[in-house]
């Protein structure tokens, strides 16, 4: 965990290289976090990975979350890890819901972190977040022909019709 001044230092350095990329930074329950502009995600992740003295080379987890009713609604979380100093930093890219049938979009980080391939597919599968530049962005856990994005907060639990019709037919 970088400490509070360390996190501000990181923020300042990113600001000097990529102005406007970091929207917010802060500590939460002992985890350092950066909230970034989704259009600049690759620049920030690449900087954290390659800039001297940073070395957040290991992407331990990539996952999405839905903050409904907050706006912007979706977020992609990148849990980066520096294994030498055992420091974790969370990079959070907030994505607005484009509305109608359009899907939120963000650049894929598969080139930087090949481990993201499955995890980005999972985020696409459950939240409908499109990762531009992903080599094979298809559903991974749900059936190919599934309609809907079930991990979104407005998708009801039990929204899946159960096709056991025996009781209905016989006992109506």
């Amino acid at each position, binding site marked *: 965990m970088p400490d509070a001044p360390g996190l501000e230092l990181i923020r300042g350095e990113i600001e000097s290289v990529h102005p406007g990329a970091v929207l917010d930074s802060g500590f939460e329950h002992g985890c350092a976090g950066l909230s970034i502009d989704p259009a600049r995600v690759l620049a920030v992740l690449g900087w954290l990975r390659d800039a001297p003295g940073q070395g957040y080379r290991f*992407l331990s987890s990539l996952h999405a979350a839905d903050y409904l009713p907050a706006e912007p609604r979706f977020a992609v979380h990148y849990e980066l890890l520096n294994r030498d100093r055992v420091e974790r930093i969370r990079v959070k890219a907030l994505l607005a819901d484009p509305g109608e049938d359009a899907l939120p979009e963000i650049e894929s980080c598969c080139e930087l972190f090949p481990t993201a391939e499955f995890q980005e597919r999972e985020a696409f599968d459950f939240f409908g977040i499109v990762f531009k530049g992903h080599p094979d962005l298809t559903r991974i856990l749900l059936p190919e022909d599934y309609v809907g994005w079930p991990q979104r907060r407005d998708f009801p639990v039990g929204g899946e019709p159960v096709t056991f019709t025996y009781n209905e037919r016989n006992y109506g």
Partner: protein
Amino acid sequence: MTVNIGPHHPATHGVLRLVVDLEGEVVQDLKPVIGYVHTGIEKSCEDKSYWKVIPFVERMDYVSYFFQMQAFCGAVERLIELEIPPRAKYLRTIFLELNRIHSHLVWLGTTALDLGAISMLWYCFRERDRILDLFEMATGQRMHTRYFQVGGVIEDIPLGFAEKLRSFVAEMPVRVEQYQALLDRNEVFLSRTKGTGIVSRERLLELGVTGPLLRAAGEPWDLRKAVDCLAYPEMEFKIPVGTVGDNYDRYRVRVAEMVESTRIIEQALEGLPEGPFIAEDRKYVLPPRSELSTSMESLIHHFKLVTEGYRVGPGETYYAIESPRGELGCFVLADGSAKPARVHFRDPSFVNLQAFRDMSTGEYIADMICSLGMLDPILGGVDR
């Protein structure tokens, strides 16, 4: 030629489908197809109060259920900033390490079975049964025990448990030696595992692989050592690492880990501190049964906890521990209500499975089966 293997095949260790491109017997390319046991656990968790989520998440990776509980409980404890008492830390450590041995035994038995060593399955499951007996004695269940609670563990260990555990811990290293005697000089086993499934350390790190697979390639990365978690900082143990990163090293690393786990259990049992086994905070922890008939306040707390459950203030956290398969992370997003807004598990099997293509291309299809066993994916954890 393209061959489809699975989803129902004993050598795929679960419901995993592999689409394999072959030229003769040599694998040119392969693609794992997953999702056959996806049950929407993460979504279902959003509809349950925090304490009811615990039995749900246990059923993801059904071989290392204590680790799933620890990941979730640890994440919630961090969100509500609840410190667990020292005795609970030690008890959790004991059960996690027992579970690690249990998981490695299941792995060793089934993988050796894939390679034709049928007797290994019976030997490994014999010891596994002793661990399950211990689980049953302490928790009432053989699998999916729901033993860890937010704040500690649900009950103290019963009378006689320590003796039974001690005799198991004394016996286990001898058993491990017997497994090694069966396999280490077995010509068939050696020629099947040595020099197969090699992936370089750099590539494994790129692919996010953790756990015994990474350690077999010579990287001594273990979250038990790296971060301050439970009673591990007070324990003395080694991290076994391999040199080449082939299937043989993976086998050696896991077998050595079983012995190290028995050492941890031994130390934790010796140093088990006295005191409460669960935190005293009545806002999150059920009051003891005896108080319910004497204290009105306890009755109110009890009623609140079992009907609505406790509320967790808005926040989010990612909490990672070292499971038998690597980094098991749990992300919990709380929105201030009594139910989590999102529970996500970074399952090591799911991430490690991406390395399978690198492990298998350019090798015989028979070696691919061996590599899959050594990868040790639990499809319940992959699909969640």
